[in-house]
């Protein structure tokens, strides 16, 4: 699993939300390369190949991180800050996905460099529609940066 390419890193502490998100991704055939972590620390370990994920190759960073705002241990905004302030991971697309519609959170998200900020609709059909558009856009339509920033940076770092 470590060597496996990961398209989407899904960070959410709620198993229910994870299930719903995966269900939505599955129904759009986007769930093949999804990796799920349940808190901020785990997410950072995965992204920076540390801790439990020390063995993971940093050559294949996720193409997209779907990041919940409220997370145990290290919350979503902190994760975002770390990712976006590190040169190696800066280019990874981070989409904040949250129930919150607080302007404050939204503003902080954008300030910290979130590529997108989405509110999970209560209605599941709409949620599914959103996930579909999201996956299609970030994984298919969007052209990610060519250089593999994480690989280089990680290599240098070690």
């Amino acid at each position, binding site marked *: 699993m470590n060597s496996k390419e990961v398209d989407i890193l899904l960070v959410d502490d*709620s198993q*229910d*939300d994870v*299930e*719903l998100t995966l*269900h939505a991704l599955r129904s759009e055939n986007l769930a093949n390369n999804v990796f799920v972590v349940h808190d901020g620390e785990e997410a950072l370990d995965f992204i920076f190949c540390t801790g439990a994920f020390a063995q993971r190759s940093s050559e294949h960073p996720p193409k997209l991180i779907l990041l919940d*705002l*409220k997370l145990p241990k290290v919350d979503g905004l902190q994760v975002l800050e770390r990712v976006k302030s590190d040169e190696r991971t800066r280019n990874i697309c981070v989409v904040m996905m*949250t*129930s*919150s*519609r*607080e*302007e404050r959170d*939204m503003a902080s998200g954008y300030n910290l460099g979130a590529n997108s*900020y989405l*509110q*999970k*609709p*209560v*209605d*599941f*059909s709409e*949620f599914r529609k959103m996930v579909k558009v999201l996956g299609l856009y970030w994984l298919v339509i969007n052209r990610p940066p060519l250089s593999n920033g994480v690989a280089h940076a990680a290599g240098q770092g070690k």
Partner: protein
Amino acid sequence: MFRFRDYSIAKKLTSMNLLVSGAALLLAGGAFIVYELITFRETLVANLSIQAQIVGSNSVSALLFNDPASAEKTLSALQAAPHIEYASIYTPDGQPFATYWRDTAHRAAPLPSIPAAQTEVHWFKDRQIMVVRSIVFQGKPAGVVCIQSDLGEWTERLQKYAVIVAAVLLVSLMAAWLTSSVIRRSIADPIVGLAETASIVSRDKNYSVRAPRTSNRDELAGLITTFNEMLAQIQERDTALQFEIAERTQAEERLTGQAEELSRQAGELLRSQRVLETQTVRLRSVLDNSREGLIVADEQGKLVIWNLAAERIFGLGASDLPPEKWADHYGIYLPDNLVTPLTVDQNPLARAIHGETVDNELFIRNPNLADGVLIESHTIPMKNKDGVVCGGLAAFRDITQRRAAEREIRKLNEELEARVVERTAQLEAANHELEAFTYSVSHDLRAPLRHIGGFSKILSEDFGPSLDPEARQHLQRIQDGAHRMGLLVDELLNLARVGRHALHLQAARLNLLIEEVVTLLQPDAQGRVIDWKIAELPAAECDPILIKQVFQNLLANALKFTRTRQRAHIEISHWQENGRMVIAIRDNGVGFSMKYQDKLFGVFQRLHRVEEFEGTGIGLATVQRIVSKHGGKVWAEAELDKGATFFFTLATAEPVSGEPFAGEPETREKVVNREPAEKTAAAGVHA
């Protein structure tokens, strides 16, 4: 009718002339005619007598020989005298012997008798004259001749004389008239001229006229000359008199003017005296009623004004004391030294007399007040009009109470501040809690809702076919419930956010906001016939984001409640009332009964069943909160099934030139920048 003496002189002269000459002529003419007639008659008688003698002499022989034919022959010679009408010769015994008739032959008239002593008689009868003469031959009467003649010749002569006399009279009168006109010219005209001149003088008082002179050198000319001289003298005196009168009049006018001026000056003096008195009374009244103590000292330090307020504050009247003794006598101290009275150098009024202006606070030991009086004093030197100091003025007021009140206020303020700090902390804590609550509602309540909705959806989609219809229906209800709860949460959050949202007031173009809202609401209007009637609204002083929310909620309602109408009418109008703009949104929807109007703007209050018209009952509460936040008010009028009108008031924006309105490109950009928030808000109301 006209009496002679009333005639003018000219007429009198003429008449006199004519009368005198006419009378003289008439008398002379009459005498002459009478004389002539008498003479002529005598001549006539003499002639006839001669003719009778001639005829008698010639007929003597015929008589003697009794030859009447010859007698008649003789008689016929009388034809040469045409006036003789008849002649006859009688025999001495009176028998007609021969006759002669000038015109028609008649019988001889009987012989008139002749007195025996006379040989001849004559008489006049019926414009005829008859002469009878005896023919005497040789002393014996031989017969009688009788001749009768008419008086034609006499009459002719009379007529001739009359004509001559008349002609002479006429000529004489004309001559007399001419003469009289010459006389008149020399006598009457100058007199008339004189009279006219005199009349002009007496009537017009014009002494410059002169009677016309004549060329004569008679008494009249003398009179005129004298008259004119007299006039000249009078004129001279008159001129002198007029001059004198004019001078006197001028002098009088001057005198009158001076008198008026004097009386005016006197009046003015009186008036200014009165004004001065009034002013003095007024000033006295001002001084006495002033709450400020006012003291004026002259340059010697004599107190010339000391008003009632000063007396009240000092508890003393003014005394005639030198400045050195003032502080001691009146009990004047500096507030920080209540032991030693002021020295004269510290005394503000004493300093003011020397030209200083002093503002300070002083303590007065008023004998009537145990605690004394604290005063605030403003002391200035008084200057005369040349700018030289001529005394000092002290104006002061009792500030004892004010100082006490200030101390009190300071104390209260400190307490209040402490309380405010405390309350603010409480409020902040409450706000924090509220925020935490809303945050939690936003995040934590939505998540389980989403799960319920999501999983029930998955359940019905993935396992629906294997479930019995009732279970499917239950599942659907779960989903609907979750959806509604989601809406409620969103709208509640929206309401809470409106409460927290700080107003960003600016001049906003309402029509642009409305346009945006109508575009946003387009999906709800899909497939419906809707008459929008949107008036041109003036710019409003408001927070465009919030007011857009108001329009969105009200227009969404209008759309929603006209859904059952074939043709929906939605109208936005406005007017000015009490200095604010009233905006009305009218629809022809299902309306509501006015008895529920008090519930209209309450949270979770709904007047329709969810099955009829969906909704959370928070939209109008949000509208009310926004409008109140703008200092406006919102109300509604409606009738069941006849549509509803919602009104709200806003402040009209002062059109500021040069500053763009909200809604114009620059400001619109701002709105767009906030779009993430806006969109979710809109979605919340809308979903």
